[in-house]
């Protein structure tokens, strides 16, 4: 970071490559939009280029700083575009990002799984931003509660509470979207 701040382009590129993936995934999962995530990652590093003094080693790691900026940008993005259910996400080479077609998958099963993934993604994106953030960090990114609390900068109890409510909402949505709600089936 110090070298990058002094104008070492390769050091900057190294820093970018080390952190961009996690930031991009977080932004993608929060916004559900590839272009939105791209803009956010670009914005985060632009901020770092323009104001490298924002980084203070005594206040935390570069990763934490970048995540903080990304989180801020994500929230702004969500305020601007509150709900955005994405169309099919594409990789850079134009192929679809999502389910990997396995050998034992029939086209019907593949379609079903694909449809279900869209539903799950839509359900996640439909959560209020605070709950969605907790779900994305602890369920999709598989962070521990401590890590998530540290990243967001809130007590661990807050994370637990948001996560619980987020999971409950998510579960209710997913159950509604199932053809035969599982709970009803079990209750019978």
């Amino acid at each position, binding site marked *: 970071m110090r070298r990058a701040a002094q*104008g070492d*382009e390769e050091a*900057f*590129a190294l820093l*970018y*490559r080390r952190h*961009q*993936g996690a*930031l*991009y*995934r977080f932004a*993608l*999962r929060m916004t559900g939009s590839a272009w939105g*995530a*791209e803009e956010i*990652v*670009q914005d985060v*590093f*632009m901020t770092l*280029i*323009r104001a490298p003094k924002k980084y203070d080693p005594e206040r935390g790691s570069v990763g934490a700083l970048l995540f903080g900026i990304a989180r801020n940008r994500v929230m702004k993005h969500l305020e601007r575009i509150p709900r955005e259910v994405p169309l099919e996400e594409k990789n*850079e080479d134009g192929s679809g*990002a*999502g*389910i*990997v077609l396995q050998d034992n998958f029939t086209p019907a099963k593949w379609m079903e*799984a694909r449809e*279900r*993934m869209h539903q*799950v*993604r839509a359900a*996640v994106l439909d959560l209020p931003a605070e709950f969605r953030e907790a*779900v994305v960090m602890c*369920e*999709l*990114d*598989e962070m*521990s*509660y401590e890590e998530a609390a540290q990243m967001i900068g809130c007590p661990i109890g807050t994370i637990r509470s948001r*996560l*619980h409510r987020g*999971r*409950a909402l*998510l*579960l209710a949505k*997913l*159950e509604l979207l199932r053809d035969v709600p*599982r*709970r009803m089936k*079990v*209750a019978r």
Partner: protein
Amino acid sequence: MEMFGKQQMNCEQVEAIVFDLDRDSALDAPERAAALSHLSHCSRCAALQESWQAAREELRTLGEATLEAAAPARVEMRLRQEFRTKHRTMVVRRGTMVAAWALAAAALIVGLVGWRNWEQSRRAETAKQTKAEPNAPASSEVAASQTQPADILAAALSSADDLGDFTPLPGAAPDLTEPSEILRVRMERGSLGALGLPVNEQSAGDWIQVDLLVGNDGLPEAVRLAQEEN
């Protein structure tokens, strides 16, 4: 925690922790055991847990689907471009700043040296004048006699005290309140007749010095014989 070891949990308590049952670090052993015990005989809570496990699996699949997601290469290109531009601009700006400071410093030094030289020369001149002061009138007289032209010696005198012994020329009415110039002229005495003054013919060929009081319009208004006549 002790209470979960001895007591059974109710549905409400299980609902509060059911999402964390498959997270090892989230619950301690007695709490987990009490919850599992409840799930074994409560179909409603067991269904809830089963639903959550299915949902969690789907979330995991969604997470895996985007596990390798990364920003496109064009983002890195754009950022590198911005990085280069920013640092080039900074270098240019730094160079400009250095040049500006250097110029300012040079201007200051030149100014100081110039002022010092001027001050030194002024002091030297003052010292020279102080030394030369006793002989000053004599030297100025010599200088005047050396530089005076043959016919006209012009002296700019502005003191009103000198105007008292002037004789107004016929037809002229000198205004003594107006600033005027005194012109010292060497002429033949007979030329005074041309100014309308009486002249003794016998001494008309003598050379005299006269002071002419010249008005703003450039015409002589009064005349007197110069006191330092040679």
